[in-house]
């Protein structure tokens, strides 16, 4: 039975370790099952679904800027960025925040997960990984790429980008666009999560800082190795105020659509975990007499949501 089930949980005890050896999860006492399901089950579901959606988003953002650039390079296959930038994108500059999300993220604390067991229904009804959500993240990626590419190329077009009159070339545009991509993608992570430990802060802001450190280090290698990246940040981009202003504009404009969506969604169509977070913040902890019945002291929106979820459950059981 343990092998046949979607998830088999074995309890290690006086009757031996046979159940433990053939199960997916093993616990020591039966009462730990509640915590395993309601706390870790819910967290795992949210982490995995968010991680997958975010992965698609960040790679679409990066890849589509390359695609739009090809339209301006007569589709010859010249990448918009130096080869090493592209190789290091998924390894150094955007991987650590996703790992932090996948391992540490908590939208609702453990205590509240146990207190509101109906939160587990989010996983059962696949609310956080439905097709509209996935496609929404993907279109966010494509839209971000469009904004990044067109804002960057129109701001840093063919005019001089510094006081000393130097005109824009391939290296500078590549660095400007890539910096915007790295900033936008990491700040998007910061906007999506509600739980910041020192790990999240270190990984997110550290990844962005790592990009600039990488540019300095790679740019100081001899030009036969670093080709187009030779001294590009130190000599060309960093003294240019236009470069920094463009990065700021592009990053904020890229994150604006998602922030707008999230603002309206949490205020006018909050999801169950949004309501719980808001309730925790307001500190108005109403007592729930039992875990199974709906208490009349809950705020109206929470009640409606709970009824909605129960109705869905009944529908699925029929």
């Amino acid at each position: 039975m343990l092998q046949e089930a979607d998830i088999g949980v074995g309890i290690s005890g006086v009757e031996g370790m046979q159940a433990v050896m053939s199960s997916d999860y093993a616990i020591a006492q039966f009462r730990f099952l509640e915590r395993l399901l309601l706390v870790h089950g819910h967290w795992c579901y949210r982490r995995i679904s968010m991680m997958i959606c975010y992965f698609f988003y960040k790679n679409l953002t990066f890849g589509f800027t390359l695609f739009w650039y090809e339209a301006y390079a007569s589709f010859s296959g010249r990448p918009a960025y130096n080869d090493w930038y592209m190789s290091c994108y998924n390894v150094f500059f955007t991987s650590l925040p996703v790992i932090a999300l996948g391992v540490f993220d908590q939208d609702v604390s453990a205590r509240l997960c146990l207190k509101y067991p109906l939160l587990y229904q989010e996983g059962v009804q696949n609310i956080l990984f439905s097709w509209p959500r996935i496609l929404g993240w993907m279109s966010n990626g494509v839209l971000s790429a469009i904004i990044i590419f067109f804002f960057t190329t129109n701001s840093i077009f063919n005019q001089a980008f510094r006081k000393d009159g130097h005109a824009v070339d391939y290296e500078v545009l590549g660095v400007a666009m890539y910096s915007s991509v790295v900033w936008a993608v990491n700040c998007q992570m910061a906007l999506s999560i509600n739980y910041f430990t020192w790990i999240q802060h270190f990984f997110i802001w550290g990844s962005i800082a790592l990009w600039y450190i990488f540019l300095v280090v790679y740019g100081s290698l001899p030009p036969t190795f670093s080709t187009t990246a030779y001294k590009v940040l130190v000599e060309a981009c960093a003294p240019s105020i236009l470069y920094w202003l463009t990065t700021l504009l592009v990053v904020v404009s890229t994150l604006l659509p998602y922030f707008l969506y999230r603002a309206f969604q949490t205020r006018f169509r909050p999801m169950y975990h949004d309501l719980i977070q808001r309730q925790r913040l307001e500190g108005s902890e109403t007592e729930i007499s039992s875990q199974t019945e709906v208490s009349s002291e809950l705020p109206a929106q929470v009640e409606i949501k709970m009824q909605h979820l129960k109705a869905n459950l009944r529908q699925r059981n029929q």
Partner: protein
Amino acid sequence: MEVEGGNTSANDAVARKISIQSRRAKVFYQFTQQNLPACKPVLTPSWIVTTFLLMGVIFIPIGLVTLRTSHSVIEIVERYDTECIPEKFRGNKVSYIKDSTILKNCSLYLKVPKHMKAPIYIYYQLDNYYQNHRRYVKSRNDQQLLHGLKSNDTSSCQPEDSSNGLPSVPCGLIAWSLFNDTFKFIRESSELVVNRKNIAWKSDRNHKFGKQVYPFNFQNGTFIGGGSLDPSVPLSDQEDLIVWMRTAALPSFRKMYGRIEEDLDADDVIAVHLMNNYNTYSFGGKKKLVLSTSSWLGGKNDFLGVAYVFVGSSSIIISLVFMLLHVKNPR
């Protein structure tokens, strides 16, 4: 653990060690139990309205300042590739430009709209010229640019790596297609001095082009792609070549030609005597001459300012709409 009366320092050390270990154990316990101290911000309506308002308040002034700076840059752009062909050759421009017996000089007259402060930068702008094409960009050899004839492997430059059996320095399509129009500026019958030094990036001059490398067997083949180089000047001093070889990002680009170190007054008429040598007619390209001052932001481009103002004002509108909806629909 034996505690002796007078041995307090050892006791302290042990106690400190235990407390450090217990602190580390505590942090490790928090880590494994996923109970680290955390900041859990919640997106409340007040935060939303504040954020949007802040964005508007920061972006609109930046946008206005940037727009004002861009408007303070004075730019003269003049397309010359169509006017500079004499009437009788307008029907067959390609054969005109390829004919080396005809002298290709041409005169333009530029009127200065407002007072332009020195230094005034001279650029040539090419449109519909894909300097970012992959095969074009590949066609160079950085080792040869640094070390000259000593480098043997110039296969990436083919077919422009040798001509008449001898290797070419610098090899490749990028160098072969060197831009070779020249410009002379005359104001009130006295020639304006154009500074053609220091137009390339310093790192290019010092580290990418060899000081002991001289052009050899360059532009000697059957097909002439562009300008030729003085074989007595080392590559690190050939600034036109260095500027040209730093390939552009987009099909419409500008490259620096030189600098005019004196002011130009409003309503001055500058006569430009140019040599229209470069062939952009075979592929429908355009050539333009640009004279521009520069500001702390660079050249003239209104897009950044307009975009900042647009994003800032939309943020403010969004915050007002949100506030209105929030107040009208109590939860």
